[in-house]
């Protein structure tokens, strides 16, 4: 017991120390105003040790803080600001603009800190809101605007690192398209299907409070401010913003429902009053480009409905499911004929959260009318429903006045569930830290029979276990209340976890035994929270129904039996005459020969592509969705397309050497090429390394290239690491290999693993960082010729040895499930494809802000004496090259030849598709299909930049983008992966000598290269040797 007391004392001491150091850190920041000397890890620590909002408020409530009363302060953004640019983006600076409506306003760039001094009139809680407008830039930027908010140079709580402000998009309706009932309709394609209108962004002033971007707090966040002078700071993390003013206000008191009713009289609108209705698919505005009208065929009475044509008749669904997304509709005043109370009755379908409800926040004319509107619930049913808006307990009435226009805005929120979700989120964090502290002692595979003495070593953790257990039991109780006894499986999971924690905390010997269980359950809970946070809702229309109508008079959610039957039967017969697979285009002009394009991804992606083509493509295109693997037989039969999309570089060259792909540019022909601007276009758009995998040496003019294809996607690896674990173990992110070797022992002592690609992937990375190529250049003309492999050079063998050492000596794992290992912190550092970003963002939401990707560890550049080289800026030169590979848009060979015009159009198409505009739009739409966090690895540099990265992410990505090295493709190249893998596995499995293993395989690789070259009539090493023996004896020693 004494020892545990000592432990406690030490823990308290440590905590104090930490607090002080954080404080010191914060003070430093304030003094230096964003000192550049501060290392990244210090920032991370500052973030990690900041408390969350809930604790912040609880602490202050305990100190008797109360809401401020009175007027608050309005800060004009353009007055008396100080701006500190981001050292990484020194060119980004604020400017004062003049707005016709607001006078002087401040344009804040996407990086840098802007501060103001405010004088707070009285001590108390305040809420903060800004009046802002998105900044219209050249690039199409549609993601939310993100800012960090500091008071006196310090974030008051961790949520203030993530304030988000939405944009506003409207559909470009065309008044010419009317439906039969006179409402707004859509353009029809040649098959009679309705086409989505395009959307454009509206730049207008809006007001937004600082709210919890995770959605755990329903109302605006409160900041505790003392009377007197304070500095407030907005730090840009994503996107430009025009700011008119910041208002620091006393928190508004919302009506309760009873107060609302009392304030608006007692008169229900009479049953005979007009019941206005708006079709949901024609909203006034939406928060995202990706919320658009959809087609629903599941019900006969979805309005409008057609047996064969696809009419856009609903909106929402999975496009409208993440926190903060909103849709706004307008109810024209002319249709409201009588003052009084109305029910707002939407026809909706919520068939995803089984047993649960989804929530929305309701705004009428931009304001939440009363408190219950934060908690509007839509219950589960597998069919359409038509019930008045309710808060789960009662249907709510709203006051509308005749002749007045109303806007109704619904925003995704978590309603009654928000606090529970927050608590579960906290529990996951607790369980993670419990797991972390246990494996620090035992490793991930503890021995059941060892007595680790947990009670002495990690007493706090055991206490935490007990606390978490109580919390979870409590949450399970709340949940029972929320669900009203339904869907017991969710509760059972919670109870199981509570029991597990109770067992582990009460008996020491159970800890090691149940560690794995704990891990699995933490993961399960995380996934559950992630799923529960998706609040998809599909809406058909919204109507106002006079409150005095009886239930019978209300519209129905489901169609009657005969109506359904009629619809299904006619749809069935119509299905014989409708081609649902054609991606209908608008253009029916038969004079122009269309460019035939084949895409073999998903149907959704093809549809996005079709839309993009219809809207912006300069040439006529016939887009076909084909099954993967159709290209080869079609080409064989001479029936292939003009252009094939997203072909991997190996395949491009495979086709090219068999003349199935047209060369786009032959260097030796210079300006005589048909597409003479090819090189220029590529240089403007792509990394120079992107073309490396798409070219072959010209056999007729050695030393020059023939190019095939335009890069479309570019993949490469980056370093992912867990900030929290690095901070906890007091490690810095490795910039070089030496740094990495320095931290390996610390990581391993703490039972952490390092993820690194084995075999050829790892070897190439090491070789490219030492400027060594995979293939040799036998004829010495500066162009790799693929006659021989170069992995038997002295440097390459060293690289292979180093790689093998990592796995043999340092025991890096060869096979691992990165997502799980990374999430649980077992593998806090890993080299992986940068698109793993998507997986981590979506899969491990609880890790927000706790990880990032950055430049790969590099190799220090050394001169001939072995001394490190320093660059002009005095910094150590580090080569952090990552191997990259591309997939390309290619022009297929047409055996019958193409007309001059078609050839030109093909080129126009390729230029259009790989251009920044098409790629950016496609990336946006792709996000809409796959989910908001999904990024797409476009090869177009500008389009990649334009995606919704935060500054930091973009900075890291650009750094790696500058350190890429492409791998050339040669006939027979497929053999290399295979034999290098054999060599590697031989070392890994049998502890064989690295050099010997690799050298054993070299001859097989070289034989295959020669054999393949012979097949294509290219000069082989053997021939070359014979021809040039006399001239260059030194090559053949």
């Amino acid at each position, binding site marked *: 017991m004494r020892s545990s007391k000592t432990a406690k004392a030490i823990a308290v001491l440590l905590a104090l120390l930490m607090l002080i150091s954080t404080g010191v850190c914060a003070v430093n920041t304030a003094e230096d105003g964003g000192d550049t000397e501060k290392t990244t890890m210090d920032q991370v620590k500052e973030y990690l040790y900041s408390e969350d909002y809930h604790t912040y408020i609880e602490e202050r409530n305990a100190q008797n803080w109360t809401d401020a009363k009175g007027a608050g302060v309005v800060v004009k953004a353009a007055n008396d600001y100080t701006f500190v640019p981001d050292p990484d983006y020194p060119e980004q600076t604020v400017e004062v603009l003049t707005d016709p409506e607001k006078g002087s306003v401040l344009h804040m760039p996407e990086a840098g800190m802007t501060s103001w001094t405010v004088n707070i009139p009285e001590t108390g809680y305040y809420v903060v809101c800004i009046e802002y407008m998105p900044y219209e830039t050249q690039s199409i930027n549609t993601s939310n605007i993100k800012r960090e908010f500091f008071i006196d140079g310090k974030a008051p709580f961790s949520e203030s690192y993530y304030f988000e402000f939405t944009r506003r998009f409207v559909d470009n309706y065309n008044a010419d398209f009317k439906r039969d009932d006179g409402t707004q309709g859509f353009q029809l394609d040649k098959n009679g299907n309705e086409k989505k209108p395009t959307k454009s962004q509206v730049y207008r002033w809006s007001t937004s409070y600082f709210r919890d971007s995770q959605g755990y707090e329903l109302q605006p966040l409160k900041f505790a401010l003392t009377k007197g002078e304070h500095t407030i700071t907005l730090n840009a993390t994503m996107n430009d913003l025009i700011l008119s003013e910041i208002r620091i206000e006393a928190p508004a008191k919302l009506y309760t429902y009873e107060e609302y009713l009392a304030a608006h009289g007692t008169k229900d609108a009479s049953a005979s009053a007009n019941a206005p209705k708006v079709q949901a698919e024609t909203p006034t505005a939406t928060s995202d480009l990706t919320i658009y009208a959809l087609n629903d065929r599941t019900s006969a009475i979805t309005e409008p409905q057609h047996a064969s044509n696809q009419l856009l008749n609903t909106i929402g669904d999975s496009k409208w499911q993440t926190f903060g997304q909103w849709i706004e509709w307008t109810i024209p005043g002319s249709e409201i004929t009588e003052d009084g109370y109305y029910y707002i009755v939407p026809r909706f379908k919520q068939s995803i959260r089984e047993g649960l409800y989804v929530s929305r926040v309701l705004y009428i004319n931009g304001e939440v009318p009363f408190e219950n509107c934060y908690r509007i619930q839509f219950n589960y049913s597998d069919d359409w429903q038509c019930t008045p808006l309710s808060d789960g307990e009662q249907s709510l009435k709203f006051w509308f006045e005749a002749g007045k226009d109303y806007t109704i805005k619904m925003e995704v929120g978590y309603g009654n569930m928000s606090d529970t979700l927050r608590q579960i989120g906290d529990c996951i964090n607790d369980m993670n830290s419990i797991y972390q502290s246990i494996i620090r002692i035992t490793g*991930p*595979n503890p*021995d059941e029979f060892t007595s680790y003495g947990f009670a002495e070593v990690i007493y706090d953790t055991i206490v935490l276990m007990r606390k978490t257990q109580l919390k979870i039991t409590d949450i399970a109780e709340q949940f029972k209340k929320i669900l009203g006894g339904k869907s017991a499986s969710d509760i059972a999971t919670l109870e199981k976890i509570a029991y597990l924690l109770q067992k582990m905390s009460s008996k020491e010997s159970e800890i090691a035994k149940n560690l794995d269980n704990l891990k699995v359950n933490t993961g399960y809970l995380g996934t559950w929270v992630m799923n529960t946070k998706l609040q998809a809702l599909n809406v058909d229309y919204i109507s106002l129904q006079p409150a005095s109508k009886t239930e019978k008079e209300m519209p129905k959610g489901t169609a009657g039996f005969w109506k359904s039957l009629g619809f299904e039967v006619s749809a069935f017969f119509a299905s014989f005459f409708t081609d649902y697979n054609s991606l209908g285009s608008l253009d029916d002009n038969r004079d122009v020969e269309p460019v035939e394009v084949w895409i073999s991804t998903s149907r959704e992606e093809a549809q996005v592509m079709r839309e993009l083509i219809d809207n912006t493509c300069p040439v006529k295109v016939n887009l076909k969705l084909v099954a993967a693997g159709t290209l*080869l037989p079609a*080409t*064989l039969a001479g029936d292939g397309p003009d252009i094939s999309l997203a072909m991997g570089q190996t395949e491009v060259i*495979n*086709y090219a050497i*068999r*003349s*199935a792909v047209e060369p786009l540019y032959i260097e030796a022909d210079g300006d005589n090429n048909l597409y003479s601007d090819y090189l220029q276009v590529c240089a403007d758009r792509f990394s120079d390394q992107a073309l490396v995998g798409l070219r072959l040496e010209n056999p007729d003019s050695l030393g020059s290239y023939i190019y095939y294809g335009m890069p479309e996607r570019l993949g490469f690896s980056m370093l992912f690491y867990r900030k929290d674990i690095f901070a906890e173990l007091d490690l810095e992110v490795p910039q070089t290999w030496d740094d990495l070797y320095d931290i390996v022992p610390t990581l391993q002592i703490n039972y952490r693993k390092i993820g690194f690609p084995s075999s050829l992937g790892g070897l190439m990375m090491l070789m490219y960082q030492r400027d060594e190529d995979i293939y040799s250049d036998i004829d010495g003309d500066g162009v790799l010729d693929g006659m021989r492999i170069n992995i038997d050079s002295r440097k390459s063998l060293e690289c292979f040895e180093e790689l093998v050492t990592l796995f043999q000596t340092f*025991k890096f*794992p*060869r*096979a*691992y*499930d990165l997502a799980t290992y990374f999430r649980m912190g077992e593998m806090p550092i890993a080299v992986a494809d940068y698109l793993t970003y998507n997986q981590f963002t979506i899969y491990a939401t609880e890790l927000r802000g706790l990880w990032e990707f950055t430049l790969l560890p590099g190799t220090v550049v050394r001169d001939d004496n072995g001394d490190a080289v320093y660059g002009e800026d005095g910094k150590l030169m580090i080569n952090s090259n990552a191997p990259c590979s591309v997939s390309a848009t290619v022009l297929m060979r047409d055996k019958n030849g193409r007309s001059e015009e078609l050839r030109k159009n093909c080129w126009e198409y390729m230029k259009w598709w790989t251009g920044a505009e098409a790629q950016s739009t496609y990336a946006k739409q792709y996000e809409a299909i796959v989910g908001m966090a999904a990024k797409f690895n476009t090869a177009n540099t500008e389009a990649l930049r334009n995606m919704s990265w935060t500054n930091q992410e973009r900075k890291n990505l650009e750094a790696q983008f500058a350190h890429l090295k492409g791998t050339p493709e040669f006939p027979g190249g*497929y053999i290399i992966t*295979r034999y290098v*893998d*054999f060599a590697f*596995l*031989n070392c*890994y*499995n049998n502890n064989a000598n690295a050099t010997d293993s690799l050298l054993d395989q070299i001859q097989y690789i070289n034989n295959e290269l020669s054999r*393949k070259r012979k*097949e294509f009539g290219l000069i082989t090493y053997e021939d070359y040797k014979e021809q040039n023996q006399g001239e260059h004896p030194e090559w053949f020693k």
Partner: protein
Amino acid sequence: MSQNTAVKERKAKPVARKDMSKAQWTLKEMKKHKAGYIMIAPFFILFFVFTVVPVFLSMILSFTSFNLLEWPKFIGLDNYIRLFLDDDIFLTAIQNTLIFAVVTGPVSYLLSLFVAWFINELPPKMRAFVTLIFYAPSIAGSMYQIFGIFFSSDRYGYVNGFLIEYNFITEPIQFFQNASYVMPLCIVVALWTSLGTTFLSFIAGLQIVDNSLYEAGALDGVKNRWQELWYITLPAMKEQLMFGAVMSITGSFGFGGIVTALAGFPSVDYCAWTIMHHLEDYGGQRFEVGYSSAIATILFLMMIGSNMLIKKLLSKVGQ
């Protein structure tokens, strides 16, 4: 009745076979049985166009160099010469294929037979249930993936997890990436999945054996179940035995997909590389269809050969 006699009479009327050429005779016979020919025509046309023609095409292609995208070039026997004299990996492939064929073919064949024999003794309802259990692995197409999870190379794979937990090993074994484990594991999986059609046809076969035969056998002095099996049951179900044998052989010679799914393509050091892999490698990855046709031809001949051998062996059943 009178019509029938008429047919019989016409048939009885001697038409000397030796008076006609073979073609004439065939034509005449075909005309006579035209209803039968019409009935098998749909299947036969499909079978001929999609199975027989490709086999012959592939044999023709095996004398060419053909890369799928350009017109084939005739190169005589070069492909075969290279295959036998200059392709070490093909020899590995033949060796592995034979190992698979010899181990899994007969073993799974006998296994099927005996399991079917035992199950046949069960009461009907029980029998249906147990049959389903044994047959299930081969209905569910990629059930063998369960072995991939069992023997995962990750330290949390079941086997690795178990071995690490009880301190047999400290680092996970790369089961499917280690030449010493791949082949045995693949054989186990092959056996497990092979209780498929063969087994089912045996059960069917066992049930058509006429019970009166057993009675007759008992009277004639069959002394035990083995004799019963050998002299009565097996001869009575020779067709099923033949069918099962053909299925086993094609199955074991064409074995490859499961190895690819478990051990990757190629398996480490080509340790479980079969002729099918070799064929896929050249046909799919290296675009050398001429060469892979030569491989296919060899495989085809091997299968034909072993089928003949089996036929011979089966004719000994019951003697």
